[in-house]
């Protein structure tokens, strides 16, 4: 079901956390609300499920205005960060709880619980209590409970934050599989850009209560609207250099590095102070615009190796390289930047 936030405003006391936010989530789409802590992503989620009352604007499920409807009547499924399973109930009772509250017949509850348990692969755990489950199993139970009554929207609040690394990887694809199988509209709240990019159809990146950019994951990575977005996406993160555009080139004053820019950008912004963002994969040996520096840090990540290269003025560029090179910490290197892929931002942080 389509979800629409129309000029949604939320404040706690005098503090306005979210001011006039607009967001449309398409039917069957999984969208990520991505941002650091305190950016308002969880607040938005709690407003959609009705736990927080909104202070302004409307929330629509389909064409139905649910702004003033209590969460009990909204038909949303929520997976909480702590899973929030009822410790005194068995897995079966936990999953069947929403149906029991609707006073559905016992037989029907049993059938539905078994169906959903099969889908999330926990049918053998139904008689256990949450205390007897591993983190991943608890996660699946929480997911089953959220899905069992066919909610209009599935809301996931940092669902993977409490899992260890391998489980996180597994549950990432499981949640996506289940979402696609059920075709449910889903909202994922996360601070982890990898989760957001790997699980969702679109990402809405938030900062200080505002959506900065909303687009598909690949597009957001390639075409960030601001240095904030560029810095948030990508691991290892993008590196920035400050400088100015002169005669069709980006010039970094301290090192005198020149980088040729595309003609239309260069001529329109000649003489302007800018920041350029260089992603690690575009700073490699053998590329065009050569930069000298000293290797200050090496991190072997297995398949790839990350190098931090310190420029004479102390700025750091990152390079991620597939093949292992014999470079050691302290070595002077001269690697090149792929100028076709550098991102140029104005002093206000917006993309040029």
């Amino acid at each position, binding site marked *: 079901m389509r979800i629409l936030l129309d000029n949604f405003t939320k404040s706690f006391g005098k503090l306005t956390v979210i001011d006039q936010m607009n967001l449309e989530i398409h039917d069957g789409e999984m969208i990520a609300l991505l941002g650091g802590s305190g950016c308002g992503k969880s607040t938005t989620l709690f407003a959609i499920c009705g736990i927080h009352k909104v202070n302004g604007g409307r929330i629509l499920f389909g064409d139905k205005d649910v702004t003033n409807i209590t969460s009990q009547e909204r038909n949303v499924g929520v997976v*909480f960060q*702590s899973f929030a399973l*009822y410790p005194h109930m068995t897995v079966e009772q936990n999953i069947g709880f929403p149906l029991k509250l609707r006073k559905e017949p016992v037989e029907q509850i049993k059938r539905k619980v078994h169906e959903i348990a099969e889908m999330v692969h926990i049918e053998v755990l139904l008689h256990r209590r949450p*205390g007897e489950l591993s983190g991943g199993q608890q996660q699946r139970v929480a997911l089953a*409970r959220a899905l069992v009554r066919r909610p209009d929207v599935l809301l996931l609040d940092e669902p993977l934050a409490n899992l260890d690394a391998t489980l996180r990887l597994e549950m990432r694809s499981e949640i996506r599989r289940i979402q696609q199988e059920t075709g449910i509209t889903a909202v994922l709240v996360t601070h982890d850009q990898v989760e957001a990019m790997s699980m969702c159809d679109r990402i809405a990146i938030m900062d200080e209560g505002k959506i900065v950019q909303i687009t598909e994951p690949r597009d957001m990575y390639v075409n960030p609207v601001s240095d904030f977005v560029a810095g948030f996406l990508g691991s290892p993160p993008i590196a920035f250099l400050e400088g100015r555009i002169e005669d069709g080139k980006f010039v970094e004053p301290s090192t005198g590095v020149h980088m040729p820019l595309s003609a239309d950008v260069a001529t329109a912004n000649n003489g302007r102070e800018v920041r350029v963002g260089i992603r690690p994969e575009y700073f490699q040996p053998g590329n065009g615009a050569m930069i000298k520096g000293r290797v200050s840090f090496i991190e072997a990540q297995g398949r790839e190796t990350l190098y931090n290269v310190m420029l004479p003025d102390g700025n750091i560029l990152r390079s991620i390289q597939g093949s292992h090179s014999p470079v050691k910490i302290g070595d002077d290197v001269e690697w090149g930047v792929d100028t076709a892929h550098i991102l140029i931002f104005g002093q206000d942080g917006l993309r040029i």
Partner: protein
Amino acid sequence: MGNSKHLGLYMLAPAFLFVIVFFLTPVLLTGVFGFTNMSTATGITGGSYMVSQSSMQALKDRHDLSEIAKKLSQVIYTIDEEGLNAAAQEGVDAGTLAELKAGFLGQSFQKRRAVERAIKSLDNRPSSTRAIKKLSALFERSVLNIRYDTEVDLFAAIDKFGLPLSVAEKTAMSDVTYTGWVFTTDNFKRMISLPDTMTTLINTLFYVFVTLIVFNTGFALVLAISTHYMDAASAGFFRSVWLLPRITPPVLYVLMWKWLAWDTGFLSTVLGPLGFEPRNWMLDTPANAWTFIILINGMVGASMGMLIFSSAIKAIPSSLFYASEVDGANRMQQVRHIILPQLRFPILFITSYQTLSLLTSFEYILLATEGGPGGATEVWALTTYLKALSNYAGALEYGYGAALALVLVVVGVFLSILYLKLFDFKTLTAPPKIE
């Protein structure tokens, strides 16, 4: 580091000492005293042997020896050496005494007149009636109201009295004439036979369970849950209001209730214009007395449960409330499915703690009604106190009181075990499986 493992024991030693001196010893002594007939009459140290009106009555009633009892209750006159010697000391004429000795030595007389007649029959008789009476008084023999330190002394006296006793009769005699305390199970027999015991028992059960269910647990739950759903400021205010009775000195607290209920008090004054006769509302009827007793105790008792339950509700993760909310649970369903199951342990704690505390507490009843009207609000602990330590007649029955207290201890222990079984204590205190 080697010495420090005993440090804990050393530090706890004073506590152990206090527990032993002020708790274990009294409990043990209560257990011992419960099987004695100690009272103000027997004293708490040893006793002596004494033939008295009441011991003779007991001899008749308990041992069916009415003949002996009748004889021992009488005064007889025996002409014996002791009497003669005493008379010689008094300066009675030696000839009189010699004649008396020759004619009557060893004879006993039932009546004073008989012995006087015997004296008058002597040739050398004293001249005045007054002297005869004085002389006859010296032969007066009785075991009534004389304390004998040992039963041997008593039996010797009875022997001399001229009433040799069989072994069985001696046993019965020493039983009824001993004035000190003895070990006995009579307290419990008496407890069972007295109809008052059943009344007190029913009163106690009524008092404990009505106060417990209505106020100490029930109303405490209502307070805790309703303040949970309030905003923080009003919740804090309401909780403090309910704590006030708890921090008021009990005597003042009960005095205020009395002012409320007296025939010149608040209720009478307010209800007077509405056509109600002024009266002591608290002691007017047993029903009124119970209403006041339960209110007085409940208002104090509810606050503790409220605090415990409130903090337990606060300890429930808020995400559980959120989850149940989006699962469609309204507040009643949240209370039923989330709060109450999580409060199992606190409810067990309050129920058992308050049962025991109500069973043994009688101070508010003592201050408010003193068990009245007519013993209608007398509970077990209060009866124990009145019997053993305070009553108008001043005849304190320590032994019987201790026996009553012992019953209370046994009931308390039994109830604790029952509660632990009922609430499945072991699984409640098991280490959590979820972190």
